[in-house]
């Protein structure tokens, strides 16, 4: 039986910052759940979703015989009643407003097979959240694509839901690394395969169609895809020198962005700038290059080692190595900074927290936490001040969501 652990951790805040948790228990809408089917996995996933969303409280009640026959006096203290049933690859959900005595949601969700049930429950949770009037949570319906180290020089690429409950291997055989979604609809991915030289492929997860995009000696990594899916930021080393390049997918033109003789990696589109990691002052730090003026400047002056980054509007999240120990364990924490403020918010405390990725709406940060021989996908709900972890018994090489 596939078991995953759900950890909930409140964010550790700077000592100078006092923050009061927003919700008082009684103010959160309360949903009572009754179900016709007899599959506990569905109820469990629904409960997990409500915990991650953190906008409402959910109580999984008991079985019922039908969706529509309601005794309203039974649900005292609850604002909503959710009744749902799963049968023949279809789930039917009814959300009643117990206060106004009206139907808020009546919808059917179809899936190709039962293994896809996490996506079905995530879609239902998304709709419940919207019907209750909270800001949309599109990230909950996203797929995660990740590569896992199987053996030295051998890795496979999987897709999953955000809780790692649904998992499917889509690319295997050989060394397949750095998967990145190629489009916002999540139909295609880019990934690097090591043939005689690193080779970039584009792969359609539904049709299996694979297209060779380019080859580069040394290393080849897709770091970012622009909003319109027209351009890529790559780390290439055509002359044995790792630099950041911009690749136009329509004109097939390659433009070198950085020319430093050390290490430049992890490029991110950031308005008219490119954010990237460089060791040009000795240690890896976040820099930005203005595409109009060509001026390069350091962005964050906190911590000596900033090894990976993600950005959304004015917010930047970095993974910072906070110890420099060649002989023992090192600590990597995630830090949130805003370009209009001097404040730095520590998002994690201890361990090896890396590869942060902002959700499309900027409300949530996904990242990898490594420990021993396992990885966890971490989900940080920024406004809710909570972190959730979903464990995988393998080392995740890279991921995107």
């Amino acid at each position, binding site marked *: 039986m596939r078991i995953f652990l759900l950890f909930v951790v409140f964010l550790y805040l700077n000592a100078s910052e006092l923050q009061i948790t927003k919700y008082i228990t009684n103010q959160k809408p309360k949903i009572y759940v009754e179900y016709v089917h007899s599959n506990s996995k569905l109820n469990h996933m629904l409960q997990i979703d409500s915990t991650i969303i953190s906008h409402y409280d959910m109580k999984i009640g008991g079985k019922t015989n039908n969706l529509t026959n309601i005794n309203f006096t039974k649900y005292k203290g609850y604002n909503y009643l959710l009744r749902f049933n799963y049968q023949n690859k279809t789930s039917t959900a009814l959300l009643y407003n117990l206060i106004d005595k009206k139907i808020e949601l009546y919808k059917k969700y179809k899936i190709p097979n039962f293994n896809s049930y996490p996506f079905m429950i995530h879609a239902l949770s998304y709709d419940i959240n919207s019907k209750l009037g909270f800001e949309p949570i599109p990230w909950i319906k996203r797929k995660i694509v990740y590569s896992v180290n199987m053996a030295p020089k051998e890795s496979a690429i999987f897709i999953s839901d955000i809780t790692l409950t649904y998992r499917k291997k889509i690319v295997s055989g050989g*060394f397949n690394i*750095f998967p990145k979604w190629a489009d916002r609809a999540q139909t295609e991915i880019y990934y690097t395969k090591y043939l005689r030289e690193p080779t970039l492929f584009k792969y359609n997860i539904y049709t299996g169609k694979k297209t060779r995009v380019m080859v580069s000696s*040394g290393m080849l*990594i897709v770091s970012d895809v622009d909003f319109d899916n027209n351009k890529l930021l790559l780390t290439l*080393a055509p002359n*044995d020198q790792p630099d950041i390049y911009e690749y136009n997918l329509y004109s097939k033109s390659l433009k070198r962005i950085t020319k430093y003789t050390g*290490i430049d990696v992890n490029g991110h589109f950031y308005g008219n700038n490119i954010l990237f990691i460089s060791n040009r002052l000795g240690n890896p730090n976040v820099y930005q290059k203005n595409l109009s003026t060509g001026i390069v400047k350091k962005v964050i002056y906190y911590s000596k080692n900033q*090894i990976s980054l993600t950005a959304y509007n004015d917010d930047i999240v970095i993974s910072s190595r906070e110890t420099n120990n060649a002989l023992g364990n090192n600590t990597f924490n995630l830090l949130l900074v805003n370009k209009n403020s001097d404040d730095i918010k520590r998002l994690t405390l201890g361990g090896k927290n890396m590869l942060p990725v902002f959700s499309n709406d900027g409300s949530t940060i996904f990242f990898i936490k490594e420990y021993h021989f396992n990885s966890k996908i971490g989900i940080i709900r920024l406004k809710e001040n909570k972190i959730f972890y979903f464990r995988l018994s393998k080392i995740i090489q*890279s991921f995107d969501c």
Partner: protein
Amino acid sequence: MKKKLLIGATLLAILTGCGQQPELDVNADQNNTAVQQSQVVPNQAEQNKQATEEDLTDTTAVKVTDESNDINQNQQIAAILSKNVVHFDFDKYNIRPDQMPIVKAVANTLKDIKGNYTVRIEGNCDEWGSDEYNYALGLKRAKTVKNALVNLGVDANKLTIISYGESNPVCTAHNKACWAKNRRDDFTLLP
């Protein structure tokens, strides 16, 4: 009486049929004899034909001998290269003084190779660092050694570099001895 007549007729028919068969057998034996005789005493044209066949055989034999020598030499070089590993300090890509003899040994091995070859220098890292940065760090380690080999007289066109970041560990335990082993450059002779 009828039985005797029937047996007599059958014997006559058998004797009559067998009487035709020996003529064919005699012809076949004559043909075989003719072939054997011509092999024992070949005429001038057939002697010339035999001489041409011997020349072709010699050419083929020389080619086979050359290929096996190449394979043996490549295997020996690959084995020597695989024993040479250059190690690096934590988060560094400069060659330590104690590692220079290894680089010089690799250079001498490569300079002794006669004929075409390509050697891939593979940069590797320990588990500390983001994977993308580690790939670049591994590449810089490979490039540093490539530059050193070129300075020692190795043809740059015969060297290629690649990085495996932290994805190709030789030791998977979480301790300082393992991390030190994984911060390295390997050398692979490409086919």
